[in-house]
């Protein structure tokens, strides 16, 4: 009796945990391509590792550099600016469009597809190149402005205009956020709206007192993911403005790339990546903590 028990123990372990087998390839990939670099970058961040000269000393000088170097600080400031401009705009815009597309309009499916397309295209290099062509001095935007007798700025080479077009590219890709909102909106029970309209509530009232509270978990989810993505933006500034003019669009991720692959200062680049990581952790922690004050879970037990 006891004998058979010990025999079956490993078998039943595999029977019950077959899943491990299925995730095994992913897990190995994760450890090799994510876990190892993740930890090694932490180690390197405490060294002066140069791609061609190796390591000659260890210490926290990279981190001191991050907090004292004007250029790096500027990079972080611009990234904050970028994230805090694009994330709210994108969320509001996505929610707004999702709300409209949630009505029963003729051809709504086509509209949904059309609005979703930019987020498929948006992160691609081709769109970034197109963006550059649209906003160059004799590009289509300045041509259109010219028709109305306006003279557009040098979009690509004016400090604030350049950051603006980079932000615009991100906000324009609101499709996937919109789809998630759309799914959430569909999940709000029609009973609530019916009851509200019987009580005489208008569309706006319904939106703010029923829709928004009911989808706060999804707003929360989108907020966190979008924030994280915005802090990591690379393609736009890299291709459209190359971080210029005068470093006005050098977001931290681009700065990390420049330090790592133009200056070969891997140690410094690693420490910048880690500071960015910690900043994002703090933001996420704050958002997680703030959840209980504004996020409503309908099936909450308390």
């Amino acid at each position: 009796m006891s004998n058979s028990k010990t025999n079956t123990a490993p078998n039943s372990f595999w029977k019950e945990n077959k899943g491990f087998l299925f995730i095994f390839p992913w897990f190995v990939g994760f450890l090799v391509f994510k876990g190892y670099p993740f930890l090694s970058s932490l180690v390197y961040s405490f060294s002066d590792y140069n791609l061609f000269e190796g390591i000659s000393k260890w210490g926290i000088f990279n981190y001191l550099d991050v907090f004292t170097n004007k250029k790096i600080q500027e990079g972080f400031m611009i990234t904050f600016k970028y994230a805090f401009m694009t994330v709210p705009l994108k969320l509001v815009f996505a929610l707004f469009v999702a709300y409209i597309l949630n009505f029963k309009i003729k051809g709504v499916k086509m509209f949904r597809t059309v609005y979703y397309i930019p987020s498929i295209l948006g992160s691609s290099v081709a769109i970034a190149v197109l963006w550059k062509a649209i906003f160059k001095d004799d590009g289509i935007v300045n041509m259109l402005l010219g028709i109305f007798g306006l003279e557009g700025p040098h979009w690509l080479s004016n400090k604030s205009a350049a950051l603006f077009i980079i932000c615009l590219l991100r906000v324009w890709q609101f499709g996937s956020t919109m789809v998630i909102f759309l799914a959430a909106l569909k999940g709000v029970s029609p009973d609530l709206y019916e009851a509200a309209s019987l009580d005489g509530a208008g569309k706006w009232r319904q939106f703010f007192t029923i829709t928004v509270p009911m989808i706060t978990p999804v707003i929360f989810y989108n907020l966190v993911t979008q924030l994280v993505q915005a802090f990591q933006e690379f393609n736009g500034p890299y291709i459209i403005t190359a971080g210029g003019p005068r470093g006005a669009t050098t977001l931290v991720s681009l700065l990390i790339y420049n330090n790592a692959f133009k200056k070969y200062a891997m140690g410094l680049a690693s420490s910048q990546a880690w500071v960015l990581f910690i900043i994002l952790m703090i933001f996420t922690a704050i958002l997680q903590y703030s959840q209980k004050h504004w996020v409503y879970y309908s099936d909450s037990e308390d």
Partner: protein
Amino acid sequence: MKKTITKFLAGGMAASMMLNLAACGGSSTATNDSASTTAAQGATEAAQGATEAAKTAAETVAKSDGGNGTTLRISWWGGDSRHTATLKALDEYMAANPGIKVESEYGAWSGWQDKIATQIAGNSEPDLFQVNWNWLWQFSPDGTRFADIQDLTDFDLSQYDQSLIDLMTIDGHVLGVPVSSTGRVFYWNKATFEKAGLEVPKSFADILAAGPVFKEKLGDDYYPLAAGTYDLTILLTYYMQEKYNKQWVVDHKLNYTVEELTDGFDFLKSLEANHVIPTQEKLTGDGADSLDKNPNFIDGHYAGLVEWDSAIKKLADALDENQEIVIGEYPADYGTPATVFKISMGFAVSPNSANKEEAAKLMEYMFNGDGVETLGLERGVPSSHKAQEKLEASGALQGLTYEAFKAASSNAPFQLSPYYEDAALKDSAEGAYQEIMDTMSYDGVDSKELAEMLIEAVNEVEGK
């Protein structure tokens, strides 16, 4: 219950995304071919490919059928015509040597250095590859990261002037073949100058005088000269070397006093103030990767450039039909002309290659042997004596490229420092030249301050 799960999910998602981020920052430090290196490379290549408007594949691996003998990997950067000529030469080589299979990797210059740097850091560079002169110092400061050409008996190094070989030598190791040299030349668009009722300029006085005439006769958006931040640095070097009759860098130090350089920056500022060159804001706003792709150059709005002698074909091809490019005289207002002249490119062999001698044979074929005629002047005027004789005999040693080369090489009394083009100075995103010239053009900072910035930046790189 569900609440906790949702919470956990959102948190988990976010955390794993950030994990990506931190990993991305430094992963290449860890593995040679890790995902992020490839990703970064991919982005570079993709960008480059897209900007080239699909003309050039960002990286093309051309494989041809060969025997089961040796396989050689070769890489180079360049434009379409160089690709075509090189591929043809390699095909001919393979036809003549059935046992050899050559795999080619090629693309445009932009992003090429990043790509090679990651390959070299990961010991995965090709058997032989085109190198920029300053790479030898950048990637192999102790002279051991590239194979010593002197050890390769199949390559005839005696076809090159000793002075050129010396320029490729670090600690007694010859790290590459000095394929060709090149210098900066003034090019003018004759058609635009004619439209303005002017002769093509022969001196700085002419150039400075042309600015206001262009503005008045042709309009605000016509300029006699266009210069990006690196071109401005070269103009500054030219002006300084001519006026003070001193080499730019001597003994690893910028060879000018703050006062002298202040004068130089005042000169650059006078170009912008006299409507000779567009501001950097205007130039960047044009949205072109380089001047030869700038529509304002193509249609004649920018009527002059300071470019490498080997670039003339590219520039002439880029111009609209009714425009005509001519080689300018070197302005000699302040002394003897002293243009920037350097080894334009070399070819190096990987020390990790299993077939160094085969690589040497291929180089011998390309630069001294039968490949010379096929390659023509695609890499500039070859420095190899044998190659020059062959091209002379076949009548290929003539035309604009050769004229430009002759002009540059006879107006270059000074040596260029191998660190002149170091990434810390020249890089278009992070380099000091860009930073300083932009500071001048955008912010109009005091010339003395700019001079101090430049001295500090150059001395730091030179003193490494």
